[in-house]
């Protein structure tokens, strides 16, 4: 049996689908967060160099990963929306931006509070920190540009161009610690090398990262639903919903 995937590209269908998915991802996010925090504070050992200060890693690294990953996903959907004129893709891209910006802010914030006790400074203009700050500006630029344009479809297109151009910053962030001599340390976890940390630390970090994924899915789905309703408030299916023919 062939599944008609295009059916889900319709904002109306997606609105209902998202509504049904949100509870599952919410439960997953909460459970993963509880387990992740438990490991972060009660299972992971004290670091021999950084004592307990290193525990900031359990939010810093997942937040930094999400900030970059969400940007790529946002640019991907914005690009699909631009190329194929699919409304839902652009709506999803707009829904991702605030969550991505939030994680970028958190990566910077927790980095500062880790940098102060370990490096002796809240901030340095090294390549890693600077490129992550640029990422925050890209998210903010994307959102402000879209907010400044009244026609949603034009806003989608303009936003997509910023988002796509900004993709060049992602490899710069990721490889900055190799390309330049940064105060920021190199990657502790990579796909090609065995991790340079205790198993419990790594497990805690990965579970917190999964929790951040689930959390992002939840907030993005809720925001996508809101954007769909904002843009389609005059559509026939919304009227049916209002009349109680359909259940939202």
């Amino acid at each position, binding site marked *: 049996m062939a599944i008609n995937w295009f059916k889900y590209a319709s904002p109306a269908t997606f609105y209902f689908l998202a509504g049904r998915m949100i509870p599952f991802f919410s439960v997953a996010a909460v459970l993963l967060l509880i387990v992740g925090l438990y490991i972060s*504070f009660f299972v992971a050992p004290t670091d021999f160099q950084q004592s307990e*200060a290193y*525990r900031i890693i359990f939010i810093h690294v997942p937040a930094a990963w999400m900030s970059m990953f969400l940007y790529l996903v946002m640019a991907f959907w914005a690009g699909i929306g631009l190329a194929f004129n699919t409304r839902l893709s652009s709506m999803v891209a707009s829904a991702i931006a*605030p969550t991505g910006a939030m994680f970028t802010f*958190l990566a910077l914030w927790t980095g500062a*509070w880790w940098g102060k006790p370990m490096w002796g400074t809240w901030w340095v203009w090294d390549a890693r920190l600077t490129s992550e700050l640029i990422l925050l500006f890209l998210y903010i630029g994307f959102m402000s540009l879209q907010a400044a344009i009244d026609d949603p479809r034009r806003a989608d297109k303009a936003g997509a161009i910023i988002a796509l151009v900004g993709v060049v910053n992602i490899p710069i962030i990721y490889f900055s610690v190799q390309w330049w001599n940064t105060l920021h340390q190199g990657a502790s976890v990579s796909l090609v090398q065995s991790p340079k940390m205790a198993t419990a630390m790594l497990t805690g970090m990965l579970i917190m990262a999964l929790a951040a994924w689930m959390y992002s899915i939840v907030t993005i789905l809720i*925001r996508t639903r809101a954007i769909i309703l904002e843009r389609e408030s005059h559509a026939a299916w919304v009227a049916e919903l*209002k009349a109680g023919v359909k259940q*939202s």
Partner: protein
Amino acid sequence: MKWESLSAFISMGGYGFYVWSSYGVALLCVVGEVFLVKRRLGTLHKQLDLNKKSSV
């Protein structure tokens, strides 16, 4: 249990100020975003007078 006492847990080996400032702000951000995004959808549901059962 890893920690000898509650105060040892709070002090985080002397780094409590830094650790809790990080976790505290993370919590605020997460709770704040969930609140805002739910309110955005909830307001729309109200404005459009949609049935309330599913408002997430």
